[in-house]
């Protein structure tokens, strides 16, 4: 099952809302889920290579706004993360 991003909104209060569905995106009655992120991440963005091995950022890197492709990737990641979180957290295994 995969998540298809339908739309991305600035919901105010720095909240980014991503509407997505795991069903056929062309279906009229498809269930729509909403994943949330931060608008500021799209404006105060550091690419992955800005981070060192210690987890901190290099001092010489300045933040920038995301490109459209990066925004699409961020929205897809939020949708994918929420889709994964909807799966059962733990699997029960019979031991005896």
């Amino acid at each position, binding site marked *: 099952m995969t998540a298809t991003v339908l739309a991305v909104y600035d919901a105010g209060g720095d909240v980014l809302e991503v509407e997505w569905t795991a069903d056929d995106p062309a279906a009229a009655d498809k269930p729509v889920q909403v994943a949330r992120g*931060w608008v*500021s*991440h799209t404006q105060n963005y550091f690419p992955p290579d800005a*981070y060192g091995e210690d987890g901190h*950022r290099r001092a010489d890197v300045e*933040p920038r706004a995301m490109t459209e492709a990066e925004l699409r990737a*961020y929205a897809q990641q939020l949708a994918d993360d929420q889709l994964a979180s909807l799966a059962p957290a733990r699997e029960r295994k019979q031991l005896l």
Partner: protein
Amino acid sequence: MTRKFGAVTMNAQTLGSVPQFNLDLAGATVLGTSDNGDGGIGLSTAVPVRASTALWDPATAGWDRLRTPTIHKASGLVTAAGSTAVWTPQSGKKFRLMAYFITVLNVSLMAAAGIEVLDLLDSATSLNQNHQLGLPAAAGAAGPPLYAQLVWFAGNGFLSAAANNVLNLSVGTALTGGGVLVDAWGTEE
């Protein structure tokens, strides 16, 4: 299925023209009157109500679920003046600072005796912590830290203003010996 609530309290008030109801189910039990064949919620089966605590946030005029600090970050020994990263959240996350412990080693000293000013910054914005202490130019005898403060924020603590902001330690004057340590607790969200 219908449900009956046991010992519950309900408070009603009016906020503007919108009625507000606070239903407190914590500690109560639910009696399920089952008509759907679910034995787990059968007639007269009492189950505890699962409730989470929410805090009123006047800054956003909304309710905020209570957080539990799950992340611990440590600065390492800092002697340089200016900003030093204590907590760099994962990409796309904000740090929520809920508590910190700040320590100045007993062998800390400056080039000239004076007042050291320590603060925490949300990227470059002061959190107005304003720790000040007098430091000598020569180290004293070994012993306990010159300064050690645990600061525990009430409620949900401080949420960073923007994703990817770093929690920085600000040191006003460089140390020529000893150093400052910060341990921070909170969440990333």
